[in-house]
């Protein structure tokens, strides 16, 4: 629910990449190989230059930045700038904002995975009244973009007194059934006989869910976790709308709040240190769970 559509909506229809051996003896030797590396390195420079520059800016002093051109190599104010950002910040300590972001991102990832697993289990393995209607409601949430409800959702949150609260940050963002749809797609590929074998073995529905379905869904759950964590961490508009109290700001929306209004000069080293801090947790999650993440992104269509 913000100006960002659900990250999983696309995954539902993503084309599936079959793994093939990246062999190919076609033109990959000698000069061609070096040109290939060169081309990729130029691309990497383009991608990393903004990040590098932010890092450099977070290690130098304010005077070095405001007298352009700023240096292109790191300075010696690293600890000073980061300590200032984490402890004091501009409006609120960045450490506090990171905590808020962490709660929000984890809340969204866990919350959405839990409710989606439960409801996907129900619609796949039970016949109950309203099941079809429920399924169509799920389908509708795939089509209905979140943008149509910014203002009314704000009103709902305000009426519930959930402004400046974690629940206000989390609940509207787990209110879509894309993950349910993905889990349903996965459950449909689980052979019917497994559930039958479990029934013959005497497993009740929830036992089957815990002992068999959940362990079999481990990789799907982990992949979704990566995607949802980043989705939650990177939220901007929604926290901007509902957290007016600086102590509830998330780090991603808090950066913009650090810019002074009017003609005052921004505290660039602290702002850039905050920017670097804002990308560290999602980058760690993506890199450390790279395989799962790519699988979740590319292979979600089952």
């Amino acid at each position, binding site marked *: *629910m*913000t100006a*960002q*559509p659900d990250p999983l*909506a*696309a995954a539902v229809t*993503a*084309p599936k*990449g079959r793994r*093939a051996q*990246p*062999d*190919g003896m076609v033109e990959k030797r000698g000069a061609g190989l070096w040109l290939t590396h060169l081309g*990729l390195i130029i*691309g*990497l420079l383009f*991608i990393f230059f*903004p*990040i590098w*520059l*932010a890092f450099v800016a977070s290690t130098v002093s304010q005077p070095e930045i405001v007298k352009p*051109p700023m240096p292109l190599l790191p300075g010696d104010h690293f600890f000073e700038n980061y300590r200032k950002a984490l402890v004091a910040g501009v409006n609120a300590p960045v450490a506090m904002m990171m905590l808020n972001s962490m709660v929000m991102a984890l809340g969204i990832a866990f919350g959405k995975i839990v*409710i989606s697993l*439960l*409801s996907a289990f129900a*619609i796949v393995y*039970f016949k*109950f009244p309203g099941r079809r209607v429920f399924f169509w*409601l799920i389908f509708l949430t795939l089509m*209905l*973009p979140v*943008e*149509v*409800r*910014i*203002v*009314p959702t*704000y009103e*709902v949150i305000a009426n519930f007194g959930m402004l400046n609260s974690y629940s206000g940050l989390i609940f509207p963002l787990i*209110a879509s*059934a894309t993950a349910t749809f993905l889990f349903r797609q996965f459950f449909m590929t689980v052979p019917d006989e497994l559930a039958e074998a479990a029934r013959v073995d005497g497993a009740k*529905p*929830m036992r089957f869910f815990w002992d068999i379905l959940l362990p079999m869904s481990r990789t799907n759950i982990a992949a979704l976790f990566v995607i949802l964590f980043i989705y939650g961490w*990177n939220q*901007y508009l929604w926290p901007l*709308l509902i957290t007016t109290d600086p102590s509830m700001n998330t780090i*991603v929306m808090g*950066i913009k709040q650090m810019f002074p209004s009017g003609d005052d000069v921004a505290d*660039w080293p602290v702002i*850039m240190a905050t920017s670097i801090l*804002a*990308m560290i947790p*999602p*980058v760690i*999650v993506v*890199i450390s769970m*790279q395989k799962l993440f*790519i699988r979740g*992104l*590319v292979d979600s269509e089952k």
Partner: protein
Amino acid sequence: MRSGRIFMEKRVTFKGIWLPLLLVLPQIVITAVFFFYPAGQAIYQSLFIPDPFGLSMQWVGLGNFAFLFSNSYYLASFATTAIFSILVTLVSMGVALYLAVLADRLIKGSGVYRTLLIWPYAVAPAVAGVLWLFMFNTRVGVVTWYLGVLGYDWNHVLNGEEAMGLVVVASAWGRISYNFLFFLAGLQAIPKSVIEAAAIDGARFWTRFRTIVFPMLSPTTFFLLVVNIVYAFFETFGVIHTITSGGPQQSTTILVYKVYADGFVGQDLGSSAAQSVVLLAIVGALTIFQFKFIERRVHY
């Protein structure tokens, strides 16, 4: 057929009515309160104009919509959105395809590049906006300064075209990872024997790419086109808000920014709701289009 698969059912079902209802309850409650009710409200509100004190609502039917489409600012925002999303899509997909084709040519080491290239995916659009704003800042920006040395006076705060260029590059930058991963997966899914057969037929790299690789990649390309347009429409709010706030003179006010600006800054709820509904129609159309396409993709 995919549509058949989407709605198929399991042979086995457990017995019970209360348990499944209990299991779907959390989702039902949360989606009803935070999704369907607000979405319904948006559609409802788009048919009214609140009085200046917000005490009562006046029914105007499609008046909000009629007003929107006769409003030159709104129509300009449409054009801005179109230009913006086309540019973002082309730039990010172009760069991603270039990198993916190169990485696909490597036998060893493509994993290292991939690890590095997925970084920007983790960077929030709003943070990407701050990074690019810093480079092009009119006072302290490094790139601005070097452009100045070269005799070019960069000022996106005053120049609408430069502002557009900056938000396009910043938005496209954050999207390269995503497109790269899909293109690379698509390229690796192409059977190497097909490419080798073409090589034996005497086709050189560029000819092979044009006549074989790119056509076989078209399902991926098409999927990415749709997804990137949706991204450019909605997810770039953070970039625009941090870099230009829609300015100068609304030259970077895309539709979703205008919903925010009119609804929260301008407090014009009826108009904002009507704009939301227009966005709904656009995304709905894109989604249906995409599903239709996916069904046809099976023939590939």
